C-alpha cells in the first residue's frame, strides 16, 4: 500500500511545489529517458542522488522513501524474471554478469517510479489537470484521470475498512495455501467493487448537478504561466540532459 502513498499530493510551499507542473513533468520524463539510456551503475546512482536532493528540497523525503519501499517487491519480481531469462537464454557468460544486469534492470524500475513519485507528491491534481488541458487533451478525459488519482487513497482506505470488517467475521486472510488465499479475496473485492460503483454513480450525479459539460468552451480560474524560475529550471535540466546525451553518443 505504501507505493500508493507516494502518489498522493501533499500541500507544501517549497520551490519544487511552486515550479510549473509542465517543467516538473518534463524533468521526470528526462529522468526516465536517462534511466532507459544508461545501464552504467554510477550514472544510475547519480540519478538517485539527484532525485534525493529534489525530494529533500521539496521536503517529501519520507514519503518519497515510502514509494521506494513500496516498489521493492516489484523490483524483486523484475530481478527474478530477468535473471531467469538471462540464464535460460544464455545472454550473459558469467553468473556475476547475470546478477549485475538483472539488478540494474530492477533498479531502473525503482528509479522510474521514484522520479514520478516526486512529480505526484508535489503537484496538485488541479495542476495535473491544467497540464493535460494545456496539451489540448479533451477535458472529460482529463477529469477521469484526475478523479482516478484523487480516489486512489480513498479506495485504499476503503480496502482497509473492508478487510477489518471481514476479519471481524473470522476470515483469516493470511492463512492457507495460494488457492485458499485467492478464494478469500472474493469477500474483499466484491464489497470494494460495489462501493466503487456506487461512488461512480454518486460522482456522476454530483457532476450533473454542477452542470458538467454545459458549455463547450471551458475556462479555468487558474492558468499555467511560465515564470523566470520555470525557464531557469528548464534550462538547467535541458543542459544537463544534453550533456548526458553528448557523453552517451560521443564519449562513452
Amino acid at each position, binding site marked *: 500500500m505504501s507505493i500508493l502513498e507516494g502518489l498522493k499530493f501533499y500541500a507544501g510551499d517549497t520551490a519544487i511545489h511552486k515550479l510549473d507542473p509542465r517543467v516538473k513533468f518534463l524533468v521526470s520524463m528526462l529522468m526516465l529517458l536517462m534511466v532507459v539510456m544508461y545501464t552504467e551503475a554510477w550514472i544510475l546512482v547519480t540519478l538517485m542522488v539527484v532525485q534525493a536532493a529534489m525530494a529533500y528540497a521539496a521536503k517529501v523525503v519520507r514519503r518519497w522513501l515510502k514509494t521506494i519501499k513500496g516498489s521493492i517487491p516489484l523490483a524483486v519480481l523484475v530481478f527474478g524474471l530477468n535473471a531467469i531469462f538471462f540464464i535460460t537464454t544464455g545472454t550473459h557468460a558469467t553468473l556475476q554478469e547475470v546478477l549485475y544486469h538483472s539488478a540494474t534492470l530492477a533498479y531502473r524500475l525503482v528509479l522510474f517510479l521514484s522520479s514520478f513519485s516526486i512529480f505526484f507528491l508535489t503537484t496538485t491534481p488541479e495542476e495535473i489537470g491544467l497540464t493535460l488541458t494545456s496539451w489540448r487533451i479533451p477535458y472529460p478525459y482529463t477529469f477521469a484521470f484526475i478523479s482516478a488519482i484523487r480516489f486512489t487513497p480513498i479506495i485504499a482506505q*476503503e480496502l482497509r*475498512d*473492508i478487510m*477489518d*470488517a*471481514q*476479519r*471481524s*467475521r*473470522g*476470515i*483469516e486472510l493470511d492463512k492457507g495455501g495460494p488457492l485458499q488465499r485467492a478464494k478469500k479475496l*472474493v*469477500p474483499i473485492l*466484491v*464489497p470494494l467493487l*460495489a*462501493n466503487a460503483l456506487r461512488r461512480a454513480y454518486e460522482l456522476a450525479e454530483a457532476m450533473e448537478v454542477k452542470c458538467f459539460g454545459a458549455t463547450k468552451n471551458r475556462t479555468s480560474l487558474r492558468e499555467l504561466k511560465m515564470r523566470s524560475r520555470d525557464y531557469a529550471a528548464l534550462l538547467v535540466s535541458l543542459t544537463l540532459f544534453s550533456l548526458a546525451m553528448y557523453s552517451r553518443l560521443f564519449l562513452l
Partner: protein
Amino acid sequence: MIKFDSVTYVYPTGARALSDVSVEVGKGELVALMGENGAGKTTFIKHLNGLLKPTSGRVYVDGKDTRTLSVAQLSRIVGVVFQNAEDMFFLPTVEEEVAFSLRNLGFSEDVVQKRIDWALKFMELEVYKKRSPFLLSGGEKKRLALAIILAWNPQVIAMDEPTVGQDSMQKEKLKEMIKQLSLQGRTVIISTHDVEFVAELRPRVILMSRGKIVADGDADTILTDGELLRSCSILMPQVAATMSRLTDLGFNAKVISVEEAVRSIVKRLMEIEHTRRA
C-alpha cells in the same frame, strides 16, 4: 470482561489515537463510548477484537492478552459491527451472508441453520432471507450486519456508530434490540455521538476526547453536565437542556429521558397544586 491497561495507540502515520487509556468493562454492562470525531472511539473498538494491538500497554478480553490471540479467535468472544454495513456483504442472499461467518468459525451445519433462523428472527429480517443484502434499506442493512455478528452468540457486542443514517423508527428498533441484548446478560459497547439515543438507553457513559478518557460514569450524571459535554463538542440531550432551565421553578435538573422528565414534571406540578390548596 474487558480491561484496558495504560493503552496507547499510535497509527503508522504518527497520529496518536489513544493516549494512556485505562478502563474496565464488566460482564453484562451496557456502555456508550462518546466523544467528538477523532476522539479515539473507533480505535478503541478496533482494540476489542484485536484488529489493532496496542503500541504500548495491554488489552485483556476475558482475562486474555489480545496480543496473544488472532482476530478470528477474539471475534468469537467480541463481535464488532462497523459503521458501514455494506463493507461486509458479498454473497447473493441474506441467509448465506449469515451462514458464511458461522461456517468460518467452524459451526456444524445443523447449528448453522438454527442460528440463521434465530438471528434473522431476532433482527426482524426473516422475510428477507432470500433477498440480496444490497437490496435492503439502510436500516435493514445495519440490522443484517448485527444479525451476522449475533448469530455466533459473542459475549461482547461492540457497535461503531450504529445510529448514523438511521431514521427515528429504525433508531427506536435498534434501541429496543440493544436493551434486549443487555437484558440477556451480554456486554454491549456502542460508540456514538448521538446524545438523544444514549439518553434513552441510559447506559454507563465513557466520554473521550483527543484519545483520552475525560469522564466515566452513569448517563444521568454525564449527560447533564453541560460544560463537560461542550468541552467534547457534544450538546446536552434536549430533555436535559429543557429541565436544566426549569431548576428555578423547583424541577429536577438531572433528568435525561422523556419518561422521567414527564414523571418529574407531574410530580412537581402536583406538589405546587398541593401547596396552593393548603
